[in-house]
């Protein structure tokens, strides 16, 4: 019989999916503003621009709210896990094996840090673009380049993330952890052995 281990709490999963839905909505409205072919198709730039802005504000606010109202202590623990790299993590990054991993492998840790940083930068550059329309002191020549560059960088991370979560046979079982919250014990032992040990396996 297959036994399962809890990998992600409800708060963690909620944060993940609110983040994902918000990102896709921002990507869609952002591309309409960015790509001439879509701008022409949809027009109504003002409306799309407002939808994009308020969705961005809502995206960050919702995530902050979930973090504050949800399992704060659990999130802090997760943040510490994502922050810390041990010798095995460095070996894992250098592709040396064996390199037993905790609940997150080193790649996932870097991905999380980058995504958090991108969110801050999206927010800052987005606010500058919005308020720069009214206040010249907030207008910088490269704000728009930063915002666009972030989009490309985030897209690269997203494509890699989707591939590993949905397509790659060895890792796609992890999708279960982000939907139902639990993962197969055997899979956990194979991919996150240090974590599995901590869980008493």
């Amino acid at each position, binding site marked *: 019989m297959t036994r399962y281990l809890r990998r992600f709490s409800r708060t963690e999963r909620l944060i993940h999916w609110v983040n994902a839905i918000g990102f896709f909505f921002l990507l869609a409205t952002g591309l309409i*503003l*960015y*790509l*001439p*072919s879509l*701008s*022409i198709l949809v*027009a*109504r*730039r*003002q*409306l799309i621009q407002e939808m994009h802005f308020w969705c961005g504000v809502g995206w960050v606010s919702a995530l902050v709210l979930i973090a504050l109202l949800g399992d704060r202590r659990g999130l802090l623990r997760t*943040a510490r896990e*994502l*922050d*810390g*790299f*041990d*010798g*095995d*993590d*460095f070996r894992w990054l250098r592709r040396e094996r064996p390199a037993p991993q905790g609940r997150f492998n080193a790649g996932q*840790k*870097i991905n*999380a*840090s*980058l995504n*958090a*940083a*991108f969110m*801050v*930068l999206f927010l*800052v*550059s987005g606010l*500058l*673009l919005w308020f*720069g*329309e*009214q*206040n*010249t*002191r*907030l*207008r*910088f*020549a*490269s*704000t*728009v*380049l*930063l915002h666009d*560059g*972030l989009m490309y960088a985030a897209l690269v991370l997203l494509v890699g993330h989707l591939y590993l979560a949905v397509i790659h046979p060895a890792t796609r079982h992890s999708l279960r952890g982000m939907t139902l919250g639990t993962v197969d014990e055997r899979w956990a032992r194979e991919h996150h052995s240090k974590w599995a040990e901590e869980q008493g396996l």
Partner: protein
Amino acid sequence: MSAPHEEKRIGRGVFLATVAGGIGSLAFGKSVWSHFSGAVSPIASTLAPFLPKGGWRIYTVTGSIPPFDRSTWRLDVGGLVDHPMTLSYDELRALPRVNQISTFHCVTGWTVKNVHWGGVRLSDLMDRVAPTSYAGAMQFLSAETPYIDYLSLPEARLHDVMLAYEMNGEPLRPEHGAPVRLVIPDMYGYKNVKWLKGINLVHEAGIGYWEALGYDRDAWVGRSNGYT
């Protein structure tokens, strides 16, 4: 080499370095970005179908792009002039033609270099309608109501100001202001009124569409709107 149980705080470093780099790029200015974009241009050319064509972004202030019907379209040039004109598209095309290559700057930070424009010199049109001595500025009306903007007569007489009906060798496309738009390379894009339907000579320049929303009236590239 650290022992397996010894942890280093790397995650926050990655986070902070990325945030600092991003915020810093606002200060380093465009030079770093243009250097960077040179490095990624091979990737960019592969992705070309998904990128803004030629660097353009299309801004409209209303929900749709004004339609253009060659048989009914007219450009009215009037106001404080001795010889008001109403030009059909063919009559506009029949005026002495000029070509120029100039760079288009948007106030939001993007730039399109070496745009090939074909059209009519604005000063030439001005001479034909003969402004009265009371005229001090030109008012440009877009078919995209209520978009409007103004140039003082000295600005309108700059040597490279034109009414462009061709871009990069083909008739101006709908999203770029078909059939004819104003081109004033020394000023930001919002002064380059698209979908022109009328030009009026007036006593003095009024407040244009974006100027009412806080942008500078004299939109000199690199010398206005907070840029120095």
